[in-house]
């Protein structure tokens, strides 16, 4: 017994600071340094880009202001609102389409026609139709997430291994058993995949919609900073949006992992 603790600690240390991680750190440090010099010395393309040191100083100022955080909450609010409605309508619809051949036959071509239209192209039509800007933004967000979830649920339900269905039928399942104990759990992984992808699209859409038509939110904040000539705040806005998107998709992945324990190997 010669101090297994210290050796395992060393292993852990080696694992965290492996060659790959060190290289990654070097790369990031180097690229930030490059950005700094490029901005300072006004390299081509970087002439108007604020250097990271100045961005850093603005970060503190932004984080201190209440308005900045209100932008966070309003963006998040919109995303969650549109996203949740998309799931509530999309998941049952996807399952229904997979279950019923007639519904599938009738609705699938419509989906195939509408899906290639970029969600943002809906913005004007949405503004015309919905009474408030808020609702029209939410609608566009909804569309972004909606198509993704429906297609994923449909795909997931269609690719359920036929043997599971057969085994369940033989074992005497009735319709509700079939749905709740077989189909639903079998589709669950696809639902979460669809959600994760949809969340990515949702953030793209919300940012653009806020830039085009919003009066608040992180997209609006970024756009306003540009219009107002406060360039460092553009970067702050971008980082915030990236962070917000990352947090949202991590949450979905986490929930997905929790809800599908059978996919864990150990």
């Amino acid at each position, binding site marked *: 017994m010669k101090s297994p603790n210290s050796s395992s600690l060393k292993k852990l240390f080696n694992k965290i600071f492996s*060659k790959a991680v060190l*290289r*990654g*750190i*070097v*790369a*990031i440090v180097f690229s930030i340094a490059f950005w700094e010099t490029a901005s300072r010395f006004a390299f081509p393309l970087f002439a*108007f*880009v604020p250097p990271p040191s100045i961005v850093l100083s603005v970060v503190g100022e932004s984080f201190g202001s209440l308005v900045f955080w209100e932008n966070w909450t309003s963006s998040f609010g919109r995303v969650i609102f549109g996203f949740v409605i998309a799931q509530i309508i999309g998941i049952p619809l996807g399952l229904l389409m*997979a*279950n019923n*051949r*007639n519904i599938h*036959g*009738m*609705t*699938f*071509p*419509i989906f195939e*026609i509408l*899906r*290639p*239209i*970029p*969600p*943002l*192209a809906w*913005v*004007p*039509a949405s*503004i*015309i*139709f919905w009474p408030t800007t808020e609702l029209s933004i939410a609608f566009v967000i909804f569309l972004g997430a909606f198509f993704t979830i429906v297609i994923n649920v449909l795909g997931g339900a*269609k*690719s359920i291994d036929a043997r599971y*269905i057969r085994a369940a039928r033989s074992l005497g399942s009735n*319709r509700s058993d079939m*749905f709740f104990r077989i*189909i639903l759990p079998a589709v669950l992984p696809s639902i979460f995949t669809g959600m994760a992808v949809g969340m*990515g699209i949702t953030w*793209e859409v919300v*940012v*653009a919609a806020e*830039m*085009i038509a919003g009066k608040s939110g992180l*997209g609006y904040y*970024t*756009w306003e*900073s*540009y219009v107002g000539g406060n*360039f460092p705040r*553009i*970067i702050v*806005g*971008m980082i915030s*949006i*990236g*962070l917000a*998107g990352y947090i949202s*998709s991590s949450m979905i992945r986490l929930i997905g992992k929790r809800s599908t324990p059978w996919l864990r190997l150990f």
Partner: protein
Amino acid sequence: MEYDPASESAPDISGRGRSRGFSALRYKFENLFKSRDLYLGLFGIIAFVGTWHLLTGVLTLPRFEKLPNPVAVLTEFTSRHPVFGTSIYAPQYYLHILWSVWRIIEAFFLATLLGVPIGLFMGWKKVFKDYTFPILEMLRPIPVLAWVPLAILMWPGREAPIIFLAFLASFFATILNTLLGVESIDESYFRAARCLGSRPRHIFFRVVIPGALPFIFTGLQIGMGVAWFSLVAAEMLSGEYGLGYLVWDSYVLIQYPVIIIAMVTMGVTGFLFSLLIRMVGNALMRWTVREAT
């Protein structure tokens, strides 16, 4: 009707196995007309357009009355002397399409030209991946559209920022899928190649590239989709031509039927592009036509 996913998978066959000969083709063709799906689909589309017309044109319910109804859209679209200047006879309409398509082609080719080799190299050389991947991972969570203001700052003129945004979106998708493609190549192919006496360049050209090809094409297809997505937004925000600009401009000028025309055109063009990529992919990858029995 009980649930059975297998019953739904029948149409999936149609995409595969084009090399099966004429009789198989005819067989499928006959099957197509026998299948209920065709008629159901037609019925669905007619019902959709009918409902739209009913809500906007006939009943003119509150809110719906403002939306353009399909008849108005169609009249505008097929008119020789369109009220709002956008129809199949208007050169202006094609100009918008051409602008968008040209931008997409520029952005997409740049992204492919850069993304595929970088992705391949990242998958092939671990050291290169160690240095580049973290930077990619830092930038990737930022939605491409959040780059709009910065793109305008960085690039001179109107055109370059728009192309840059479309490029960026497509670039990330391409690079990541290519990397994934190389990493998904089974180790035993590398081993087999080495023990057959390959030098590194053989491995790169004869194993890495063909092995990653299916993923590369998936990446290109996704890349094309997101490039359209960003292009539209960029054109809406700062364009002078292009379909995205057309949508926004028609809104501002209250030419509502044109909005629908532009939207449908976007959908169709986007679809044609991804079809093109799929066809090129299938032609290059005949070996994926039929999976292992």
